[in-house]
């Protein structure tokens, strides 16, 4: 299915969030939001994605 990952239209095979993250190769420290709503890490296994969902995967960067 097609989802928007960090602003980019992306094809993914998996539907569960934990699998999608693995498929896309995200690593290190990150946190996730789907359609602008925070998804806690404890929900990754049961959370599913649907066609057209917006997935944001954020990591630490410098800031002021």
């Amino acid at each position: 299915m097609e989802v928007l990952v960090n602003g980019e239209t992306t094809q993914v095979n998996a539907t569960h969030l934990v699998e999608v993250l693995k498929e896309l190769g995200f690593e290190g420290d990150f946190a996730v939001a789907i359609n602008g709503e925070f998804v806690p890490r404890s929900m990754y296994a049961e959370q599913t994605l649907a066609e057209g969902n917006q997935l944001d995967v954020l990591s630490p960067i410098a800031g002021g």
Partner: protein
Amino acid sequence: MTDQLSLYGKTFDSRLLIGSALYPSPAIMHEAVQASGAEIITLSLRRQMFGGGSGSDVQGSAEQREANEIWTYIQQMGLQLLPNTAGCKSAKEAITLAEMSREIFKTDWLKLEVIGDDYNLQPDPYGLIEAAAELIKRGFKVLPYCTDDLVVCQKLLDAGCEVLMPWGAPIGTGQGLLNKYNLSSIRERITQVPLIIDAGIGAPSQAAEALEMGFDAVLLNTAVAKAQEPVMMAKAFKTAVEAGRLAHNAGLMLKRQTAKPSTPTVGMPFWHQDK
């Protein structure tokens, strides 16, 4: 030393809070932050680069590597982390980002930014107050980046903020304390919580002035990161903040309109005695 800064129940010896962005390299960031003596460091969250969409190997891109290196340095330093919500333009965005920050950084401290205008990155007071109230309900320790508006500051206190961070000038301008009347009004009216000047400070003299005026601390980034010698500038700010605080505690003399000799006039020899 008993003259410590107390924020949300934690005490700090340093009254300088520092940002981690815009340095020439992660190594210089690390050295400058250490030279500054700061015990609180700001940082942020951005989209992680990934190879999924384009198929290119951006995971190993220079930008992502630098972000990882900075994060590694910050973790090693063991400072109080102060994640920001830079770039958020609504309470909703800021709240989502705050929740993500809390999970990654394992702290409920938050520099809350809700920006209302792109030109001067001025905080949106309505969104800021709304987000602050909600985040405090969710257990966050909110340090709001706000304008120098007394009533906005009071509303943030009503929302439950225990620290306020009014701007000196817009972010990254280095203009110093632009509206001293507003800032001193805020300091005079709000004595029950610490006040930190956040943003706009360009020179150590301006940081010292903020402390002399009775502000409890300053938060800055660009002034150090964009100096010709960031590490040296970090030391300059450390010294200036200490000087400003000492001066405040010592109590400044009152200004006068006319001159008054500092050398005693009693027993003056020779001059002017033949009037």
